[in-house]
């Protein structure tokens, strides 16, 4: 290495991913680069060009386009590009053009690969929008059965440290110190007669370091107090067969740091969030973390650029439709939460409590890539329009605009908190839903597929659960409503003709295509919702609803399993199609061209549509108009 490349090494070392490299690696980059000057407006790469370098902007700025000519990203000094092309058979997918006179450093491919292999942080940084890591991970998965298929039981490092309900706080703290653990399980011995009088340990609570700090020390509580008084009673737990991924989602959702793991009803260990982070530090969790750290709308919008790549990665990891839908929903929810937080920072604390609602696919944990923002506000019953109206209007507008900039476009049906119609107090919402259920006119049912899936994401989220409980109770007891909802679920038919041939769109830009959402997943979700409300299930996710429905026994034999398969298959085809769009730089949509499918895929797809069709016929019979 020539000492004189210090100038270059020093400069690139200030910017990620080069900032993650040690000094000697930086020097080897600095002495291997090539440099080129591009005049404003000049193409750095055109679509389909061969590419053999990873590019760094030394001065000027560069715009990255999608294949269809839409602007994808605008980069400036210190930014990098080209990694995607390097991994896609060395063909440029996203053309690049100099927006100003620019000086570009080119890092040769071989060196780039070496850096990715040797420096994890370097690799993580470029992986968010690159496929190389993905290929690698898929390979790895085949080799050592990784990520998505790992069960949470595998993360347990040691047997749980436990104490009986009779113990005092002091004893609890002592045993935690002796065992040097940050959480302690409180258990009860139960003699189980079913297992021939065997003993079973029943988990009744959990106590963490943090609890000792916040509930004991800072409150000045007597150390002889029974531990049961300061523990968290009936904590959330997971079965050891649950996927690591689901454990992660649960922790994110309920803000938990420790999760007891259960086998045959007894605790067998505790998994801490740090265990999971260590296990998979590089997936959707990473993006969620990023979202919560951004300080401005512009920064959030930048993070949003990474979401499609994260989606593609999960598809590559053969995650199930359910897992992908959940991850995308957690990401979408995080954007909402952070935007609400930023809105409150800007506008001051809310004058009365509120709850920001997610509606539709996000509430069902079934969000994919292109999705309108469907949202609404529940306001406290103390709300007074004259006094508080402006605040919530501004808040809704801030969040809605932010979501739009983060890739969740405005809802065309104006089902958004910015619409004064959808900012109601809790009692107004109750009255509203009661009206819809009692008098199910077509108008009321128009938006039922959006409104009847709701979830609180920010503020007083318990209200959302209360409201949903209210809706389910009332719907279940109103056969007329269920019948109307069932009628409504028949409006969108699967694209199958009389001879079981595909019926495709006849005109417009989508000629000879099938809209998988409109003709497949959406009507299926509608069917499942009717059954779920009928049996009083509180689940909102379609798979979970279906589980409840199957358990209730209202479906004929095997129909439930068929529906499950059809749901997963249709969702997966849709997901894969979106991932392909992302990878080829095309606009993401929900339409597929059956002509391009293989025979087997076509057959499976028809099979799935058939299941949908017969489930719709069953609805008519099961929920008749009286």
């Amino acid at each position, binding site marked *: 290495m020539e000492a004189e490349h210090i*100038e*270059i090494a020093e400069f690139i070392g200030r910017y990620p991913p080069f900032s993650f490299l040690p000094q000697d690696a930086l020097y080897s980059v600095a002495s291997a680069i090539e440099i080129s000057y591009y*005049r404003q407006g*000049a193409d750095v790469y055109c679509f389909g060009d061969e590419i053999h370098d990873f590019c760094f902007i030394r001065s000027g700025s560069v715009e990255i386009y999608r294949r269809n000519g839409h602007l994808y990203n605008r980069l400036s000094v210190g930014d990098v590009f080209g990694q995607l092309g390097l991994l896609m058979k060395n063909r440029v997918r996203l053309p690049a053009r100099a927006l100003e006179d620019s000086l570009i450093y080119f890092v040769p491919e071989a060196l780039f690969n070496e850096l990715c292999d040797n420096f994890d942080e370097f690799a993580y940084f470029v992986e968010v929008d690159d496929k190389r890591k993905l290929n690698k991970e898929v390979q790895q998965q085949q080799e050592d059965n990784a990520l998505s298929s790992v069960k949470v039981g595998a993360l347990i490092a040691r047997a749980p440290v436990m104490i009986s309900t009779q113990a005092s706080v002091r004893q609890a703290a002592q045993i935690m110190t002796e065992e040097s653990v940050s959480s302690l399980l409180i258990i009860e011995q139960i003699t189980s007669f079913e297992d021939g009088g065997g003993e079973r340990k029943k988990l009744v609570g959990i106590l963490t370091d943090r609890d000792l700090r916040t509930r004991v020390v800072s409150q000045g509580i007597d150390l002889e107090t029974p531990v049961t008084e300061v523990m968290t009673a009936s904590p959330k737990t997971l079965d050891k067969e649950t996927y690591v991924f689901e454990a992660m989602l649960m922790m994110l959702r309920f803000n938990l740091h420790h999760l007891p793991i259960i086998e045959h009803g007894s605790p067998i260990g505790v998994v801490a969030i740090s265990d999971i982070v260590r296990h998979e530090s590089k997936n959707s969790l990473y993006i969620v973390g990023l979202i919560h750290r951004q300080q401005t709308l512009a920064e959030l919008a930048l993070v949003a650029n990474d979401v499609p790549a994260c989606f593609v990665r999960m598809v590559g990891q053969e995650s199930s439709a359910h897992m992908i839908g959940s991850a995308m929903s957690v990401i979408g929810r995080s954007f909402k939460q952070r935007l609400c937080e930023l809105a409150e920072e800007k506008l001051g604390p809310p004058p009365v409590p509120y709850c920001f609602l997610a509606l539709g696919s996000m509430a069902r944990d079934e969000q994919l890539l292109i999705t309108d923002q469907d949202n609404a506000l529940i306001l406290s019953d103390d709300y007074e329009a004259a006094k508080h109206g402006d605040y919530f209007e501004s808040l809704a507008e801030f969040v809605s605009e932010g979501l739009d900039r983060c890739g969740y476009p405005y809802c065309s049906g104006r089902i958004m908190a910015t619409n004064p119609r959808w900012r109601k107090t809790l009692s107004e919402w109750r009255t509203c839903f009661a009206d819809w259920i009692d008098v199910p006119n077509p108008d009321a049912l128009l938006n039922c597929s959006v409104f009847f899936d709701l979830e609180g994401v920010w503020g007083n989220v318990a209200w959302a659960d209360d409201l949903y409980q209210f809706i389910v109770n009332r719907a279940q007891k109103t056969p007329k409503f269920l019948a109307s909802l069932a009628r409504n679920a028949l409006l969108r038919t699967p694209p199958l003709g009389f001879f079981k041939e595909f019926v495709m769109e006849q005109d417009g830009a989508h000629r000879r295509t099938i809209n998988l959402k409109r003709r497949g997943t959406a009507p299926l979700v509608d069917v499942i919702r009717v059954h779920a409300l009928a049996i009083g299930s509180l689940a909102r996710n379609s798979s979970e609803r279906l589980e409840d429905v199957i358990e209730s026994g209202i479906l004929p034999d095997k129909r439930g399993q068929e529906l499950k398969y059809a749901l997963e298959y249709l969702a997966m085809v849709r997901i894969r199609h979106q991932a392909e769009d992302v990878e080829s730089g095309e606009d993401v949509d929900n339409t597929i061209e059956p002509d391009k499918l293989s025979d087997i895929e076509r057959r499976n797809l028809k099979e799935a549509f058939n299941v949908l069709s017969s489930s719709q016929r069953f609805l008519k019979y099961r929920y008749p108009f009286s």
Partner: protein
Amino acid sequence: MLTHQRRFSWLDYLQEQSINSQEPLLKCFYQSQLDFIQDKTLRSTEFVALDFETTGLCPEKDEIVSIGLVPFTLQRIKVAQAKHWLVRPQGQLSDESVVIHGITHSDLSQAPSLDKVLQSLLPELQGKIVVVHYQFIEREFLAQASARLMGEELIFPMIDTMAIEARWHRMGWRSELKRWFGVKQVSIRLADSRVRYGLPRYQMHSALTDAIATAELFQAQVRHRFSGEDYVSDIWQ
């Protein structure tokens, strides 16, 4: 210096030298330069940016202390093939130039002598067009050195990025008018010229950094002022 008044032609000169030169290294070099005379376009040419650090401005009295070069084309500057030499001076090094170049006495006392360095340098320039910023330094110091060490002055065409800047900013009626009115002349120093093309300011100065900076400046000049189809022989000096 060579001027048009003598109806000078690089073609004639190089042909003459390639026949008359007694020094094989130089002979070979002149021959390689002849290729450029006829029909080389900027796009099809390989260049090499060259920079010397010297103890002063007088070729007869001052010495070269370091040499940097980087080969490039209009498309890419090949930093991986860049070269840098320190040169052991024959005389004493003044403290002043140490400050300027950041090169210490002990660095230089370990360095090879100029005639060793020339043996390595010339093959690097062969088959390429040399690009410098302010040709006086590199051309005169090189001629002086070869005369002293090989008995023949080495002189060959170079592209001078400063001359290109001067052509744009120091000639023509606008510049004339400015001079009349006492308006300050546009600076054509390397760092200032680079700024006009949106090129970054480099913090450090060494023969190698300046060679890279010159190569970048030339790429920018061609993108703004010439076309890849222009002939090398139209812009060299």
